[in-house]
């Protein structure tokens, strides 16, 4: 289980466990007509030798491709097409088909209408949940009734204690949230106003803590959201 450095309303912080809540129902499996389990497999469709660019180059231009397709099957690699692929490694090819050994990443941003806004060197977001700066209890409660019309939970994680002290720490939070029947907005960064990023290069999410207690047992769920409930403009 991964860790999360979390602070409470008294600004006390502790390292607690964080784990994605598993789905209640497993994904369906597939069997054949005899009831035996079918195995998923990946296979080769096209190779570099049958790439369109290579066929065009060999034909001497796109206007000659139809003729060589009639005369033969340059688009099929009879050695490799259909071969099962058990493992593979990603590589990148230059426009001329050569393997590129030094790859940089550009980030291209588009607006909601699909127009390009800017390009820049891609910088991965750094994780901010188990860093020295704890994830902050912002103090902003959001009633559950109001929250249901504001955002949706794309991911749900469960927090867990790792010793007696963190048990009391988390149980207290859960009891407070249940009493108020509300979420607590959590935030990253020194002012607690940044979205949470769980791993380096990961997506940012707004985080809302939900708590329930049942006697001495507690349940704290971290709801991650990156989508508000609103219509497209």
């Amino acid at each position, binding site marked *: 289980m991964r860790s999360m450095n979390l602070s409470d309303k008294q600004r006390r912080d502790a390292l607690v466990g964080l784990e994605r809540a598993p789905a*209640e129902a497993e994904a369906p*499996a597939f069997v054949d007509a005899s009831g035996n389990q079918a195995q998923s497999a990946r296979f080769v469709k096209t190779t570099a030798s049958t790439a369109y660019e290579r066929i065009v180059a060999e034909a001497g231009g796109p206007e000659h491709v139809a003729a060589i397709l009639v005369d033969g099957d340059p688009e099929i690699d009879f050695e490799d097409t259909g071969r099962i692929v058990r493992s*593979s490694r990603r590589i990148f090819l230059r426009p001329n088909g050569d393997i590129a050994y030094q790859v940089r990443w550009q980030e291209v941003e588009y607006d909601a209408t699909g127009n390009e806004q800017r390009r820049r060197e891609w910088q991965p977001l750094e994780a901010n949940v188990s860093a020295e700066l704890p994830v902050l209890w912002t103090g902003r409660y959001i009633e*559950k009734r109001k929250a249901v019309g504001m955002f949706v939970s794309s991911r*749900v994680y469960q927090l867990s204690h790792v010793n007696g002290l963190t048990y009391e720490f988390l149980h207290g939070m859960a009891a407070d949230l249940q009493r108020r029947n509300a979420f607590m907005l959590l935030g990253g960064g020194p002012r607690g106003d940044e979205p949470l990023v769980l791993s380096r290069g990961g997506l940012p999410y707004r985080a809302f803590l939900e708590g329930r207690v049942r006697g001495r047992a507690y349940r704290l769920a971290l709801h991650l959201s990156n989508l508000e409930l609103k*219509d*497209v403009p």
Partner: protein
Amino acid sequence: MPRTLTFQLFKKRETREFKLEPTKIDRPRLYGRSERLPVDNYGNALQSAAVDERGTTVIRSTGSGYLDAAGRWLSSADLRPVDSEGRPLPEVPSSFQEPIVLEERASLDDYYEHEISSVYVLHGDIAAELLHIVAAQEELFTFPFSYRGGHSPERGFLIAGRDRLFLVSGRRVQLEYLERVDSGRIDEFDEPDEPELDFSFSAQRSGRGRHEGDS
């Protein structure tokens, strides 16, 4: 012609039908999007490919499918979906093919035990009327929802937004109540051993690591 969902609501011995058009809501439509493009040192766009386990074949595209125990390909028509107990899963039609009956309710706590994967805003002449009905409920209308049909429908919910009616769908997750004895363990990844400091400076003396000032 846009597709419509038909919602049926039984009220005071009469059945009201609401035919509404769903429009998908996602981040690109609301906020825009960004994409990462691989480029070389000269800014030329690169294409993604793969090299196989032998390291001899450059693969441009792959497909996927299923094999039987003997390694023979199985067509989609030969496949039977089953659950974790091996029981056949029934096929459900697309939610566009049959009316969605609004009779089952879910509490807010029940709703919050789901991860939501799809969000649609519902449009139509009578959307405002159904929005008013949904907003007045203490609980949420819930129903099985499958956009394309298949074997494992998601759970759909009608949500009243500020001035729009939304249909959201997702799957339930498992959350547990933890007692003091249910202490978890954070995975600790061992830091790699730090290399020993080389006071012999043998690399520099052999000329491999010349620095300014070295004789």
